[in-house]
């Protein structure tokens, strides 16, 4: 998608698919304190999808974008991957899935 200066002024409307909603509901039931952080990340995506995402390499290279973020909570690091595409109206972001993985920080492999 070509850069549009309006991007920086008018946020995109973010539409969550049924499975993305299910994923997030399940996560928030297990971990309610994640709600504000995840919401702020998705709002940031709505404001600036071009710089916060990259083209998805597989399996939907042509149409999809990926955004990744993580947060630390109670000794666990939560990793999120959001896969979306731009709507045909160029004003919406359609989120197909929000994958979530978590690992104990002590088990993480750091440089």
């Amino acid at each position, binding site marked *: 998608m070509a850069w549009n200066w309006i991007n920086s002024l008018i946020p995109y409307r973010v539409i*969550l698919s*049924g499975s993305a909603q299910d994923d997030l509901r399940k996560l928030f039931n297990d971990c309610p304190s994640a709600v504000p952080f995840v919401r702020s990340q998705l709002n940031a995506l709505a404001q600036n999808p071009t710089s916060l995402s990259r083209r998805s390499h*597989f399996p939907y290279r042509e149409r999809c974008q990926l955004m990744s973020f993580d947060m630390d909570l109670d000794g666990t690091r939560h990793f999120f991957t959001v*896969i979306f595409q731009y709507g045909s109206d160029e004003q919406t972001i359609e989120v197909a899935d929000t994958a979530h*993985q978590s690992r104990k920080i002590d088990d993480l492999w750091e*440089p």
Partner: protein
Amino acid sequence: MAVVLSNQIDASVKSADELESGRTAEHRSAMFCFDVEDLAAEIVRLYHELGRQVEKWQDHLAKNEIPSEREQLLRLDETWLSLYTKLEATATKVVHLIKYTEGLGYRLDGKVAFKECLKGLREITCLSLDRVRGGFASIASGDGLELDQFFDSL
């Protein structure tokens, strides 16, 4: 090409298993560290090769307008995903081997590239093809919910 890559990935799985089972006996040997380093480098190479093959496949798919051929080509997505999944599992096994060798005081070359590769593999394998397809289909059929509406409904 998927067959060649599949065999190469199987070979890396076998190497990881053999190194894992042999680490106690050989843990003092510098050769063990070099073998782990070689295996990590091979996984990075396979990851990039897999990416190139997938891009070729996607290019073929984009150009092909014959429905029956497109159907056949489309079905390869499960093959690619299974190769990525196998490679991710092997890479995770290699992480343990690297940690072990580092515990012995060795420093491995190519660690940054390996970590990038592992991150890429996990981003691919955490997504399910069916769920992504289903997600877009549900939005197209009007089942999507706007972000604020969703958070207000919690």
